C-alpha cells in the first residue's frame, strides 16, 4: 500500500449513491410484498371462475383475470416469491460452489489451479441458457432443479472472480504472517482471505441475481422451469401468450413485476458497487 497523502485523509463523509438508496428502497418494498403476498392477495390463487374468463381490469379484479378466471393481481403478487427465490437461490448456489473453488485455485496455484480453471473453461463453452437447457432437459422440471441449474450456470463467473481477488489478497503480509503461524489452509482461506476478498464478490453477486432471475424466467417460459399451476412470472407470461391481444393485462402485470424487480436489484447492485469501490465512482 502506498502512503496516503495527508490532504486526502481529511475526514469527509462520502454520501451514499442515489442508486443504492432508490434500489434498496424498491427492493425492500418488493421483498415485503413477496413475504406478505399470501396475506395481501385478495383472492385464492387457484380459485377459478369460468364465467369470468379473461375479464379486463375492474374494481374487483385490479389486474383482470386469466384464461381460467383466476385473479391476476393475486397471482402476480405471489409470483414474487418464486422469482426472488430463483434469483437469490441460484446466486447462493453459484456462490457456495464458486467461491471455495476460486479460493482454492487462487491460493494453492499449481496443478489444482490448472484443473479447476480448465473445468471452468469447459463449463463456459456453452451459452448460459443452453447449459441450463442441457441440465434441465434430462430431469423432470421443478422449482428447485431450476434453482440448481441456474446456479450451476453461473459457477464459472464466481470462480474466476474469486480466484482473481484471491491472487491479489494472497500476496499481502498478513497472509504471510498467518502462514508463519502455521495456520491451517482452511483458516487462511476462509478467515484471512475471504473477509478481505468479499467486496467485489458481493457486488458481482448482486448483479448476478438479475441474470439468474431472467434466465430462470426464460427457462420457465420455455417449459423447463416452474410448472403449472404455480404462480411464476415467467410461467404466467408463457401461459398468457396465446391470449395476449385479447387480454394484455396478464402479460402486462407479470412482465412489469419482473422488469421492476430486475431494475430494483440492478440499481441496488450498481449503488453497492459505487459505495464499495470508490475508484469506479470517481471515474464516471
Amino acid at each position, binding site marked *: 500500500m502506498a502512503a496516503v497523502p495527508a490532504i486526502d485523509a481529511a475526514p469527509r463523509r462520502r454520501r451514499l449513491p442515489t442508486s443504492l438508496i432508490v434500489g434498496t428502497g424498491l427492493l425492500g418494498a418488493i421483498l415485503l410484498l413477496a413475504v406478505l403476498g399470501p396475506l395481501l392477495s385478495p383472492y385464492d390463487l387457484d380459485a377459478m371462475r369460468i364465467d369470468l374468463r379473461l375479464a379486463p381490469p375492474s374494481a374487483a379484479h385490479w389486474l383482470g383475470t386469466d384464461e381460467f378466471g383466476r385473479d391476476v393481481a393475486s397471482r402476480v403478487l405471489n409470483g414474487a416469491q418464486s422469482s426472488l427465490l430463483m434469483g437469490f437461490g441460484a446466486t447462493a448456489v453459484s456462490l457456495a460452489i464458486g467461491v471455495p473453488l476460486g479460493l482454492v485455485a487462487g491460493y494453492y496455484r499449481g496443478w489444482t489451479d490448472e484443473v479447476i480453471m480448465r473445468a471452468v473453461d*469447459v463449463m463456459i463453452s456453452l451459452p448460459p441458457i443452453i447449459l441450463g437447457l442441457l441440465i434441465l432437459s434430462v430431469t423432470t422440471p421443478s422449482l428447485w432443479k431450476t434453482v440448481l441449474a441456474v446456479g450451476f450456470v453461473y459457477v464459472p463467473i464466481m470462480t474466476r472472480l474469486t480466484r482473481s481477488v484471491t491472487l491479489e489478497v494472497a500476496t499481502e503480509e498478513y497472509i504471510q504472517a498467518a502462514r508463519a503461524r502455521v495456520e491451517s489452509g482452511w483458516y487462511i482461506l476462509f478467515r484471512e482471505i475471504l473477509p478481505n476478498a468479499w467486496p467485489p464478490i458481493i457486488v458481482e453477486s448482486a448483479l448476478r441475481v438479475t441474470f439468474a432471475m431472467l434466465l430462470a424466467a426464460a427457462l420457465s417460459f420455455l417449459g423447463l422451469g416452474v410448472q403449472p399451476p404455480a404462480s411464476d412470472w415467467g410461467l404466467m407470461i408463457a401461459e398468457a401468450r396465446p391470449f395476449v391481444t385479447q387480454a394484455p393485462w396478464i*402479460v402486462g402485470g407479470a412482465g412489469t413485476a419482473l422488469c421492476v424487480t430486475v431494475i430494483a436489484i440492478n440499481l441496488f447492485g450498481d449503488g453497492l458497487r459505487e459505495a464499495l469501490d470508490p475508484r469506479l465512482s470517481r471515474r464516471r
Partner: protein
Amino acid sequence: MIGYVIKRLLSIVLTMAIMSVLIFWITQVMPGNVAYMILGDFAAPADIATLEAKLGLNDPAHVQYWRWASGLLRGDLGMSLVMERPIGPILADTVSKSAILAGISIGLVALVGIAVGVYAGVRHGKPADHVVSVATYLNIAVPEFLFAIVVVMLFAGYLNWFPATGYSDLSNGFGAWARHIVLPVATLVLGLMAHISRLTRSSMIDTMQSQYVRAARARGLSEWLVIRRHALPNALLPTITVLAIDVGIMMGGIVVVETIFSYPGLGRLLMFAIQNMDVPLLQACMIVITFVYAAANLTADLLYAFLNPRVRYGRSAGD
C-alpha cells in the same frame, strides 16, 4: 501471434473433446428408452431386446461414446429418432436459417448500437446522453421473451403489419420472406442493443477524455474529424470484441425467439429434441452449438489480439 493462435486452437480442440463426453454422458441419463421410442410403447419385450442389441444399447458406455464420437469426426451425426431421418441434412438446413436470422440481427445491433453509443458518448452529460442511459438501463431489465410478446401484440395483433409466427422460404419471394423475419429480428436486436450501446458509450467517453484526443483537438482539427479519425477507432476496440461474444449470447436468445415465432432454425430444433426426448438429435444440436460458440469466442479473442498490440506482443495476455 501465430503461437497464440495455435494455443487457442488447441484449447478449443480439448474443450470440444471434453464437452462431447459431457454432452453424451448427460443426455444418456435422459428419461425414456430409445428402443421403446422407436418401436412404440406396446412393443413386445423380445423385439425391444433385439433392437437394443442391434443398436448396441447394451454395450459399455465408452464403446457407445466412441461409436458416436468417431461418427461425428467422420461427419456422421446419426439418425433422428422421431423424424427417422439422418440428422446431418436437417441440421445443415436449420443452422443456415438460424445463421441468416442471427447475421441480420447482429449486423443491425452493431450499426444501431454503435451509433447510439457514440451519439451518447460524445454528448456525455447532456440531456441526450441521459435519455440514452435511462433507456438502455430499462432495456437491460426486459427479457427477450417479453420483447417478443410485446412486439407480436403490437405489430401482428393490433396493427396486423407482419405475421405473428411462421416462416416463408426465399423461393416464395423476397417480400413474404422479409415480412416473416422482421419481428424475430426486431426482438433479437432489442434484446442485445443496450449491451452494445452502453459499452460503446462508456469507451467513447474514456476515449474523448484521452491525451491523444486532446492533442488532436489542440492541432485545430474539426470535432467531427477528431471523433471519426482519432476517437472512434480506439473506442470501437472493446465493442468489436464484445460483438463477437454477442454472437454467442445471441444463440441463447435464438432459442427463445425461434420458439415464439415458430422459426424453423437451430433453436427450435433443439427445443423439439428436448420435448420429444430425441437423444441423438439433442446431442447433435448441442455439439453444433458448442462448436459455433467456441468459434465465436475464438474470433473475439483473435480480433482483440489482432487489434490490440499489448496482447499481441505477449505480457498482459491474462490467463
